[in-house]
């Protein structure tokens, strides 16, 4: 019987027979003045099991009706032996969720609760006779049904959203014991992520201000630098049939297009969007507006479900004039396909010509594959190729060199607390002829804190050597994330053997809903004997992050 029917039944009863209700009232428990208060219900034991568990949450098969209440501490057992502890955070009628560590489905629990249904029932009025119940049931069934919106108890449901405004203010230091004074800078990052302006247009902005207080020779230009990555008014509401953006546009859904100062406009036709874009390309190093570089072209995007799978395609045909590549005409195609968790494939290719031509006119191409052919096994592999050989200033490089690279990961979830995987890869630099290969076994223990990983890497090629590490993620609280990593690196190039150790610690500590502290410390030190002093260095930064 639904709550609706209950309400209607009650109304029917109230409207038809006040006399019938009288015995109920009369039988209701009362406490006479001066009489002793009703004794609290005796504790009772509720038993159950964990129906499902994630890394930090267990879902219990008992809830409020059984006496489970938020905050209750539940001791879990496995095969009769203690298996952990969790604290109830959410309670349903016959279900509850509790948080803890190392939780597993099937674990059992038995808790003492103060609610004893039998004791409560004893205080309630006896049910009316069968005749009366039949009469009431008939009245209920004879009443026409209509949906009633019960006045629900006001309850705040907090659904976090991406912050519209975010600012990161901090200081970063790079310093080493050997030579020079290092680098230091004050940094302010500001971003606006869709602030409503007018007519459905929203403001997007992303910029960085840097004041170098200590600047080594590798940093070109002024000590005060402002980088503007994005500053545009854009309308991309998925419910509208057109899109538009103007300003310093970071083009969405246009594969491979650089940031430009100009405009983009598109029309949505079913699952597709087609449009055009064009503008001046800012300076690659300073992001200052430039009149010597530009781009213009057309694009298309398709997002098409195919049964339970999804295909996303994108294409761009454009002319580009930019430092390094000169005048370049290029066409790019990207395809991404997902069939649930079983298979994911993505690939892209760009062909081009003009002042600079890559072998076979293939500027670049990439292919990635992820698959879970059977549940505990996962495989990921990728290959990429860059064919353009762009002449450039090697002090301030802005283009990749011709290269091939590939990598593959094969992993097995051995148990819920252990994943083993092997990562291998290679990079061939077709410009210098330098090649690097690596092979790396790793073991991940997801139940240790919030993830412990140990790994080893063997390096081959022009940069021979090996490395090993252990790293851990830990979330001691909802707003606090910590990461630590201890590493050892060895290089054996040229017959010399060089050993370093490294320590990395990063973290975010939420101060309140709008403010957080973010820090990162990386320390490296040489540990080879026979040197006058052990060299060391650090790259560290601390930021105050505000978001709204």
């Amino acid at each position, binding site marked *: *019987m639904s709550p609706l029917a209950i309400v209607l039944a009650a109304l029917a009863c109230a409207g038809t027979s006040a006399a019938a209700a009288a015995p109920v009232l009369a039988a209701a428990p009362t406490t006479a003045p001066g009489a002793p208060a009703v004794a609290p219900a005796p504790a009772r034991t509720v038993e159950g099991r964990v129906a499902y568990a994630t890394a930090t949450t267990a879902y219990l098969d008992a809830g409020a009706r059984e006496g489970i209440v938020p905050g209750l501490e539940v001791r879990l057992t496995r095969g009769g032996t203690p298996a952990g502890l969790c604290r109830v955070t959410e309670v349903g009628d016959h279900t509850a969720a509790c948080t803890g560590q190392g939780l597993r489905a099937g674990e059992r629990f038995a808790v003492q609760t103060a609610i004893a249904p039998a004791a409560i029932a004893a205080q309630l009025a006896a049910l009316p006779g069968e005749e009366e119940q039949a009469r009431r049931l008939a009245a209920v069934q004879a009443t026409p049904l209509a949906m009633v919106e019960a*006045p629900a108890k006001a309850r705040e*449901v907090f659904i976090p959203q991406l912050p519209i405004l975010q600012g990161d203010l901090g200081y970063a230091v790079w310093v080493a014991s050997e030579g020079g004074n290092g680098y230091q800078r004050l940094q302010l990052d500001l971003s606006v992520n869709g602030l409503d302006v007018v007519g459905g247009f929203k403001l997007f902005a992303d910029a960085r201000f840097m004041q170098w207080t200590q600047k080594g020779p*590798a940093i070109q230009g002024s000590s005060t630098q402002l980088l503007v990555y994005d500053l545009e008014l854009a309308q991309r509401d998925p419910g509208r049939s057109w899109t538009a953006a103007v300003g310093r546009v970071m083009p969405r859904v246009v594969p491979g297009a650089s940031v430009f100062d100009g405009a983009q406009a598109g029309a949505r036709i079913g699952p597709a969007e087609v449009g055009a874009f064009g503008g001046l390309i800012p300076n690659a190093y*300073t992001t200052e507006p430039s009149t010597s570089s530009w781009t213009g072209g057309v694009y298309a995007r398709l997002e098409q479900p195919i049964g339970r799978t999804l295909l996303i395609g994108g294409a761009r045909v454009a002319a580009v004039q930019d430092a390094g590549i000169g005048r370049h005409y290029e066409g790019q195609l990207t395809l991404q396909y*997902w069939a649930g968790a079983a298979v994911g494939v993505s690939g892209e290719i760009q062909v081009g010509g003009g002042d600079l031509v890559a072998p076979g006119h293939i500027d670049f191409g990439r292919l990635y594959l992820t698959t879970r052919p059977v549940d505990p096994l996962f495989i990921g592999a990728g290959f990429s190729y860059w064919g353009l050989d762009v002449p450039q200033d090697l002090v301030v490089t802005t283009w990749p060199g011709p290269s091939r690279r590939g990598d593959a990961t094969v992993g097995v979830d051995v148990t819920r607390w252990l994943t083993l995987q092997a990562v291998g890869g290679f990079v061939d630099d077709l410009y210098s002829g330098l090649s690097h290969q690596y092979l790396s076994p790793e073991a991940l223990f997801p139940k240790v804190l919030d993830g412990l990983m140990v790994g080893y890497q063997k390096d081959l090629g022009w940069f021979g050597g090996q490395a090993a590490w252990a790293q851990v993620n830990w979330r001691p609280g909802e707003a606090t994330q910590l990461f630590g990593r201890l590493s050892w690196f060895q290089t054996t190039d*040229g017959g010399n053997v060089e050993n370093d150790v490294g320590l990395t610690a990063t973290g975010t500590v939420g101060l309140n809903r709008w403010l957080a502290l973010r820090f990162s410390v990386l320390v490296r030190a040489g540990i080879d004997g026979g040197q006058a002093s052990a060299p060391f260095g650090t790259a560290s930064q601390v930021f105050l992050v505000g978001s709204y």
Partner: protein
Amino acid sequence: MTRSTTAPAALLAAALLAAAPRGARAAAAQAPSPEKPAPSLTATPPHGGDTKCVGCHTTEGWGDVKFIHERTGFPLTGKHAGVACKQCHPAGFDVPVGRGCTACHRDVHGGFSGMHCVSCHDTNGWKSRFNADAHRRTNFPLQGKHAVIPCESCHGDRRDRAFARPTVECRGCHEADLARASASGIPHDGFPSSCLACHSFWRWKPAGFSGHNTCFPITSGNHAGIACMRCHVTLPIPLVIGGCNALPWPACTRCHPCSSVQGEHNGVSGFSCTNLDQKCYQCHPSGIGGDGGGNRRMR
């Protein structure tokens, strides 16, 4: 652990409500607002399909959604855990959603960095977790001082944040250091392109050349730690590691002039002060007196 409580509970509620004060009954009777038509009892949920409400909702309210997303093979970790369902499933839960990052997120790298975002980012935020350690899987692992300099020192594209750079030989960045070394009296012109044969990732000096031991030990013994130019008038060009035929011959006579060694070689067959540098090495290839015709250490 289920038990049927519906019927008695309904009757109990009905009875209690029947006994409720007039005001409460009146409020209950007015619950269906005359301005707002009651929704159909058979209405389908807004997300369509053959849904099982208890799979996601609780009796606490419709907004209180508890769906175990791990079952889909796409666990909601980090920031994903705080995103409203409709942001990823605007057209309903039956419409497949791309699992790759670029299906939902814009690529701020202009396509230069590929589509494998997890190489550098995780779901806790876009601030990259890529650091000097992760660089070891590129073609330029960061060891020594390279690990503690700003990314901008090498990667110049800040407009598209491409982090692109061809892997070049050391002199691609250290041409000035090379010129400085040559100007200071140590000509490097014929040296191999990889500085690592002599220099470490931390500092230029002191330099070491472990390949030198093949021809003449300089990491131990009497000749350990002496500067290159103490022996070499000029460095051999081209430098061939392990060749053992450095020309001109290292100047042994700078420290071991003929006048000081002549007396010690009386009676040694073939000893002559002519071409003594070459003769020293021919008889004492390990720099020790006993390995040649004599029985004493070289001083």
